[in-house]
């Protein structure tokens, strides 16, 4: 078991969650409650990573952030950093790639709160921010949590994007999925199989937990 790679993967997943939690809540809620021009276009764009091959996204990220031109050059000149072949670049790629896994379940969670309940909250004298905090978030919480769990598990298994945008740099971008690939190419079947099996078990646990959570929440809504 490549503990360094596993730790890196866990850190990558957690970091992705730190960003996706607020992004998911904001966008999920916005899409659940507002109608506006261009809404279906926005939803389509946000859903792209569901069907887009990771290499396509990886390719575009490389193009945009390569430090030889454009945005990448600007970043290199002004901040001395890049967003390719390092952990930060992976976090960015991971955030983008997980957007639909975060936003869609949260959107559903917010949308499943009956409008009347939010209106009743307003009639109780609650400001919109209070309604969000006291009513919407608690009721949407199971959906939010399961979105976060899915994102975590999904990030843990990311491969194509990491390979393209991150390379295979130990303790920087060598995530556990890459490490498995690496071990296979080093003819180290034992390591590869241990890591693969662990990820398999973890994925199963994640999915079961998510299902259990969503069943529990459907009991909470009268």
């Amino acid at each position: 078991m490549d503990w360094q790679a596993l730790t890196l993967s866990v850190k990558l997943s957690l970091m992705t969650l730190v960003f996706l939690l607020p992004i998911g809540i904001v966008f999920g809620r916005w899409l659940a409650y507002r109608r506006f021009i261009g809404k279906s276009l926005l939803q389509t764009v946000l859903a792209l990573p569901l069907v887009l091959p990771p290499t396509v996204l990886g390719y575009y990220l490389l193009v945009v952030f390569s430090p030889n031109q454009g945005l990448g050059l600007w970043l290199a000149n002004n901040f001395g950093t890049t967003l390719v072949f390092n952990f930060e670049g992976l976090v960015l790629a991971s955030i983008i790639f997980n957007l639909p896994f975060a936003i869609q379940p949260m959107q559903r969670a917010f949308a499943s709160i009956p409008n009347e309940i939010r209106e009743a909250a307003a009639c109780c004298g609650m400001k919109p921010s209070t309604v969000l905090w006291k009513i919407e978030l608690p009721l949407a919480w199971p959906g939010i949590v399961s979105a976060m769990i899915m994102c975590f598990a999904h990030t843990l298994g990311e491969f194509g994007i990491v390979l393209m945008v991150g390379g295979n740099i130990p303790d920087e971008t060598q995530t556990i999925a890459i490490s498995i690939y690496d071990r296979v190419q080093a003819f180290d079947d034992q390591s590869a199989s241990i890591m693969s099996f662990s990820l398999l078990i973890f994925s199963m646990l994640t999915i079961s937990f998510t299902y259990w959570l969503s069943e529990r929440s459907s009991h909470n809504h009268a």
Partner: protein
Amino acid sequence: MPDSSIIIKLQQQQAIPLNVELQCQSGELLALVGPSGSGKTTILRAIAGLYQPQNAYIECQGEVWQHSSQQVFRQAYQRHVGLVFQNYALFPHMTVLENIQQALTDSPQSQRREQALALLKKVHLEGLELRYPKKLSGGQQQRVAVARALARRPKVLLLDEPFSAVDQVTRRKLYRELLSLRKLLAMPIILVTHDLEESALLADRIALLHKGEILQTGTPEHVSSHPQSATVARLMDQQNMFTAQILAHNVATQTTLIRWRGLELQVSYQPKFPVNTRVCWMIHSANVLLHRRDRPSNGDKENPLQGKIIEYMESSGLAQLLIEVDTELKVNIALNIPLHVSKRNKLGLNVTTGLSLLKEGIHLMPYQPLRRDS
């Protein structure tokens, strides 16, 4: 203008057409009645601030909540309204007590629990503070919703078909509770319902809505017995509606004479309809008098008719009769009488009987084509 009333003027064409003007005094219960889609709930939501009509003026107890021409619009959470939703909209993740406390934003934290408990007591739900809404019956949920609405110390209490989701027995109980609660409330109360009987039981005044317009306001009794048009009569579920022709007006006897299917009927003096014009007329079934063989009365002499009972239904102490009257062309009159009277007079299907249409009960309305053959 008394300060503790509510004035509502709404007007818009798009989306849901509306054109209403309403007032409700403090302590008065006004029912908005009408078929679904007539705009009743929209009006209620506009009052609450959950819906913003294009042109509106809403003033409640001196506060202007909306004034379109001056760009004034107060958000729902800034208005003090108590709204009881049709499905109660209790917060499922909070206990009964917490639900009520959410509306006690104006009170200091330390007093909220006490005040919430007091409200619970008012709606006869002591002991249920720690229950969750899904463990409550429909009637209990409704009471919690009412308590929560009152916790807001509202300037107007709005009820959106609050009894439609419960069974009849519970409903009767809740009616009584609402009526007794009313006495303690110094605010206008607006109730939306499609149930005419409910409005008759609970309301001081009703406003009959049809396609976004108010057709008539008045006491339930008055609107049902003196509808301004055949449409109103139909919406008030008046069964005895017919057409006739004005024959004459007699100011001396305070009588108007109409011809109906070859018969001449004497009705109360209603000179606004010119002679020889067609009119619609209706009579509330309470004003149809059955000729009782055991106890004849003076009323028997007014507009007497003979007929055969062609439909006979008994229900909860009443007999509902449909009588086919002998006229030029067959026509039916509906009436209800107490069951014991029906039995004593040995009434049933195919029995012939006499009946009278009380003169004061015949109400004339402008002519409009009626759907059934009448």
